[in-house]
């Protein structure tokens, strides 16, 4: 009879308790009464804007880009059918391979670091620290700002040759290089930026930690468990659904990083393509050189990659995510 800590439960007092995801069972009627029919019509009216949006802004364009991915299209002439040529072209596209390498490095280095930091801080803050709300807000602030052009501009300065970081290093006698202008380091500065926004997952972790009943810890203490044992045997297992949730969310988000790389590299993905994120390359092909067909193919591959990783994540979750009994 373990309580499953779900992320939707961390609510302020006085709010209506959220219900679990599954719908309340609909009253089954074989013959729909006039009243039910009327309700159906009203429902469609309420849904009309969403429905139009779904068809015109979402589903239509998804199918449209699938079609375009098999064509050559420059916006000026009608699309020309190419079959699989765009996909074949990817196999020999060196810049695409670079973009994949850059993006994968970014995702698989920054997401674990970010989540580890978020978890550590959440754990640290959870034990009834006075001023919790203040600390939480301070650590959360970068998450709100991190995706903005303004912060990317700041990053471009502080990791520049004469930037803040090198000034600080200079004070302790180290002569730093231009971080954003060096192909070996430019990506690291963006990884640091992503890690810097650990506040959002941290808030989710905090909400999850609050759901773990204290009686587990009390019971473990009676059995003589120390802090370390409690952390590994109680906190972590009960928190795995939230770790999983954060992991899925952050991976999906990080694959789509665009603004920071665009601003820091001035839209080029440089130096030497070291910050050529997948989305940036797709943008360059589509809206730089107006190869709309190829850009669509690239976008679809991104969709498949993200969906693939999410699926793998869900499959792997069966092995390590603990949903209680």
């Amino acid at each position, binding site marked *: 009879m373990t309580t499953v800590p779900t992320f939707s439960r961390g609510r302020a007092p006085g709010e209506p308790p959220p219900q679990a995801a599954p719908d309340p069972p609909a009253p089954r009627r074989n013959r729909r009464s006039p009243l039910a029919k009327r309700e159906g019509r009203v429902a469609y009216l309420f849904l009309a804007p969403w429905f139009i949006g*779904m068809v015109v802004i979402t589903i239509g364009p998804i199918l449209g880009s699938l079609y375009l991915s098999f064509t050559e299209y420059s916006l000026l002439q009608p699309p020309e059918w190419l079959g699989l040529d765009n996909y074949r072209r990817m196999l020999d596209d060196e810049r695409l391979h670079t973009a994949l390498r850059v993006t994968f490095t970014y995702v698989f280095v920054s997401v674990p670091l970010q989540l580890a930091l978020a978890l550590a801080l959440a754990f640290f803050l959870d034990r009834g620290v006075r001023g919790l*709300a203040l600390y939480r807000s301070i650590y959360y602030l970068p998450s709100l700002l991190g995706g903005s052009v303004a912060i990317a501009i700041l990053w471009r300065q502080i990791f520049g040759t004469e930037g803040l970081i090198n000034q600080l290093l200079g004070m302790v006698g180290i002569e730093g290089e231009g971080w954003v202008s060096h192909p070996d380091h430019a990506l690291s500065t963006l990884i640091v930026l992503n890690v810097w926004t650990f506040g959002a997952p941290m808030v989710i972790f*905090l909400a999850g930690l609050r759901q773990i009943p204290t009686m587990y810890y009390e019971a473990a203490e009676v059995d003589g468990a120390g802090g370390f044992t409690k952390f590994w045997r109680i906190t972590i297992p009960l928190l795995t659904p939230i770790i999983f949730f954060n992991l899925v969310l952050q991976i999906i988000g990080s694959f789509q990083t665009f603004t920071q790389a665009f601003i820091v590299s001035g839209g080029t993905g440089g130096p030497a393509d070291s910050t050529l994120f997948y989305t940036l390359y797709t943008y360059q092909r589509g809206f730089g050189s107006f190869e709309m067909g190829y850009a669509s193919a690239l976008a679809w591959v991104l969709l498949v990659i993200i969906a693939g990783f999410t699926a793998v994540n869900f499959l792997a979750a069966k092995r390590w995510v603990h949903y209680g009994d």
Partner: protein
Amino acid sequence: MATDLESIAAPDPAALAARRRRDGRKRRLLKHVVLIMFGFAMLYPLLWMVSSSFKPSDLIFRDVSIIPSEFDFSNYTDGWNALARPFHHYLINSAIIVGFSVVGNLLSCAMAAYAFARLQFRGRRLFFAAMLGTIMLPIHVVIVPQYILFSELDWINTYYPLIVPKFLATDAFFIFLMVQFIRGLPRELDDAARIDGCGHFRIFWRIIMPLCLPALATTAIFTFISVWNDFYSQLIFVTDPDLYTVPVALRTFVDSQGESAWGPLFAMSLVALGPIFGFFLAGQRYLMRGIATTGIK
């Protein structure tokens, strides 16, 4: 009897407790020192940016302190007039888009959420699943056909491509948020209103909406922040310098005279962050709840 048991478990409870208290106090103090230092390190770049926006440009490369030695507003006046239009022009443009986006999201998402949470209709499960499926859809997949569609409509270099989708509930995140919230409201309220002769539109508008205020506030704040910060779609759909929004204007600024004008750039970047910071201070409660329920940043 109880006292007996306790004394067996801990031979000298008073002394032990006193020691524990002393240790605890030391530990707590240490914890706060670590937390404050870490928080300072996190915010240092931001604080330095604020301070640097008041420094002459050459000092930015030499001074790491977060307290400016003198207050000089020339970076702000220079930055304000550095682009083709004064900076408030771009602020107004962004505000227009954000304003319409907030209204659009609130209306369209709340309507869809009411239907999903309270009404019975054919295909409800399927539509709900489809809606959830679009939450995580990368914009990169749909942007090219959207661009083609909007250029067919002659909407490129207008704000319609940025605003109209918000009135069509395309931010499924917020539908989900509100569905969860509405499901938590007692159904008896609807039933009572129905018995009193209220139709669905009145129940929606007079009963559900007022009770949804917290969820609406969360939606409004997150829409504000995400649209204000949004760069990608504004970069693609708006290429006329007169229509530039704040992020696109900043991008032009940094690319045209970037490295030579850090002072004015910092100043305008901070102006751009100002509204976000304001909402952060004012809307704490809703922000924290929003992240805890949906995981959006």
